[in-house]
C-alpha cells in the first residue's frame, strides 16, 4: 500500500470510463447534474454524443437507462449513492433489477466520508438495499486499480450492477500485477490472530492497522471484499477456521451491509462470533472525512483498539 499516493475511487471511475468509451461504442453515460462530482464529465467532454444529462431527476435517470439497455446499449448511470440507491430505489427495483436489464449504476459519494455535506448526503444503507434485490451484482471497490478493473469488468456482466464509490481520496493498495475477479475477495497477509474483513474506504484503514499491529507481534490478515454480492463464502469460511477472531468494518450502517453479509455466511456454514464495526445504526453528521472516520470509530486506530481488547 502506498500511503503517499492517494486517489478517490470516483476519480478512477471517471477516468477509466472515458477510456472504456473509446473501446466500446455501446457505452452510454447518464448523469443527474452531478457530472463534475461523479467525474463522468471526463467521458462527457470526450463523447458528448454519448453523454446525457437528465438534470436533477434521478427517477428518470434510472428509467432512461433501463430503456436504453433494451436497445443493446450499456448505460452507466451516475449520481450520488443516496439519490441512486435511495431516491430512485423503486425505479431500480422495478425497471432495472426485476426485468434484469443491463444497467450499471455507479454511485459516488457513499458513506460518512462524504464529509462536510452531512447526514442527508451520507448514504449508509445502499449496500443493504441493493444486495437484497434479485439479479443485482453489488460492488464496493477500495482503490484506484481495483476500481478501474471493476469499471471494465461490469460491462461484461450481462445484468444490473451497482457499484459504490467514494469521494475521499484513499491510498493506492494494488499494483498492476494484482488480479481481481467478481465474487472473489482478496486476502492480504497470512496472520492468524484475527481476520479483518473490509470493503471500500475501510480496506486501507485495516491495512494501516495490520502494519502497526505487526510491530507489536500481532499478526492479522485483511480481506478486501470488493464484491458484496455474490459474496466470497469460501474465503470467509476459510478465515473463520484459520483465525481466532472475525471482525468486519465498513463505512455503512452495521445493519444490512458487509457485516450482515459475513454473519449470514458464517451462521449458516461455520458458526463463528463476528464483531461488526461500522456506523452503529445512526445517521451521519458534518465534518472532515478523516475526522469522521475517527469519530465513528471506523479508522485504523479503532481497529487496533478492537484487536487489543
Amino acid at each position, binding site marked *: 500500500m502506498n500511503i503517499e499516493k492517494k486517489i478517490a475511487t470516483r476519480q478512477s471511475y471517471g477516468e477509466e470510463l472515458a477510456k472504456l468509451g473509446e473501446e466500446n461504442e455501446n457505452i452510454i453515460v447518464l448523469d443527474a447534474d452531478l457530472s463534475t462530482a461523479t467525474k463522468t464529465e471526463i467521458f462527457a467532454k470526450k463523447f458528448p454524443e454519448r453523454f446525457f444529462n437528465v438534470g436533477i431527476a434521478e427517477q*428518470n435517470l434510472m428509467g432512461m437507462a433501463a*430503456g436504453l439497455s433494451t436497445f443493446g446499449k450499456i448505460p452507466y448511470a451516475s449520481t450520488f449513492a443516496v439519490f441512486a440507491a435511495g431516491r430512485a430505489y423503486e*425505479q431500480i427495483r422495478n425497471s432495472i433489477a426485476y426485468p434484469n436489464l443491463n444497467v450499471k449504476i455507479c454511485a459516488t459519494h457513499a458513506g460518512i466520508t462524504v464529509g462536510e455535506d452531512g447526514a442527508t448526503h451520507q448514504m449508509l444503507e445502499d449496500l443493504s438495499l441493493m444486495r437484497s434485490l434479485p439479479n443485482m451484482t453489488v460492488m464496493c471497490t477500495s482503490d484506484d486499480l481495483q476500481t478501474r478493473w471493476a469499471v471494465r469488468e461490469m460491462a461484461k456482466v450481462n445484468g444490473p450492477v451497482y457499484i459504490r464509490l467514494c469521494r475521499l481520496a484513499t491510498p493506492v493498495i494494488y499494483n498492476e500485477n494484482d488480479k481481481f475477479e467478481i465474487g472473489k475477495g482478496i486476502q492480504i497477509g497470512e496472520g492468524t490472530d484475527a481476520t479483518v474483513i473490509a470493503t471500500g474506504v475501510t480496506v486501507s484503514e485495516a491495512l494501516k492497522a495490520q502494519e502497526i499491529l505487526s510491530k507489536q507481534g500481532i499478526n492479522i490478515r485483511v480481506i478486501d471484499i470488493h464484491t458484496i454480492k455474490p459474496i466470497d463464502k469460501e474465503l470467509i469460511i476459510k478465515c473463520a477456521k484459520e483465525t481466532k477472531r472475525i471482525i468486519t468494518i465498513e463505512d455503512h450502517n452495521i445493519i444490512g451491509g458487509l457485516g450482515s453479509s459475513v454473519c449470514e455466511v458464517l451462521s449458516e456454514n461455520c458458526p463463528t462470533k463476528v464483531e461488526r464495526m461500522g456506523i452503529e445504526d445512526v445517521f451521519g453528521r458534518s465534518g472532515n472525512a478523516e475526522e469522521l472516520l475517527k469519530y465513528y470509530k471506523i479508522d485504523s486506530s479503532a481497529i487496533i483498539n478492537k484487536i487489543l481488547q
Partner: protein
Amino acid sequence: MKITNVEALNKIAINVRKGIIEATYNAKSGHPGGSLSCADILTVLYFSQMNIDPDKPNDPNRDRLVLSKGHASPALYSVLAEKGYFDKELLKTFRKVGSNLQGHPDMNKVPGVDMTTGSLGQGLSAAVGMALASKINKAGCKVYCLVGDGEIEEGQIWEAINSATKNKLDNLCIILDNNNLQIDGEINKVGGINNLTDRFSSFGLNVINTDGHNIDSLLDAFETAKRTKEKPTIIIAKTIKGKGVSFMENQVGWHGKAPNEKEYNMAIEELNNAILQI
C-alpha cells in the same frame, strides 16, 4: 400486414375487449375498466401503425410499445393474442400460478411485451430511453407509450417529458388514456390535475386531442404524430372507463374488480351483439 379498414379495426377491438373480460373473469381479479378504455388505442397501434412481426418479437428494428399503465395488462395481452404472439387460450391463465401472464407485464415472460411495467410513472422514462437509443442507432424505430391520466400525478412523468423534449425525440408518441377516473375518483378532484392541453404544451410537447374510441380519429392522430418533427407528441385520447360493456362504463368501481359469472355472460353477450352490428 397493416389494417386501415375502420370496420375491420372496430371488430378486432371488440374481440380485444372480449379477451379482457375472459382474462379478468378467469383470474377473478385484474383491471377491466382501464383495460377497456384503451382497447381501441392498442388495436389501432398493433394492427395499423406499428412495424412489428409476431414471428419476430425480438427484432431489434421493430417499433416498441411501453404500457406505462401496466395494470391494463389484460388489454395488452388480449391485443397481442389477437395479433398472433401467443394462443388466445392463454388469456384464461392470466394472474395464475405458473402462468407467464403476470398481473403486470413482464418483458421476459411474454413475447411482444417490450418493457416490464406496473409501478406507475416509470414506463415513460423507459420509452424515452428507447427513443433515444433508436436515434443513436439511427434505427428508425418509433416508440409508443400508453400512459394513464391518473398516472401523470407521478412526478417522474414530468421528468421524463423534460428529457424527451430536450432530446427532440420526434420518434416518441405518448398516448394519454384520458378516462378521467382513478381509484379514488375523478382525476381533477383526487390529484388536482386539469388543463391537460396547456400543461403538456407548456412542457414542449406537440399535443393532439382526439376521441380515443373513434378509429378514424385515432388513425388521423397517429399520422399527424408521425409527420411532426423535432418534438415528441402526446395524443390526449378522450376515453370512457369500461367502454363497450355498458354496466362498467364510467363506473370507478370497475377499476380493479373482476366480473362474476352473471356479469361475464352479460358482458360477452353485449360484445357479441356489438360485433353483429358492425
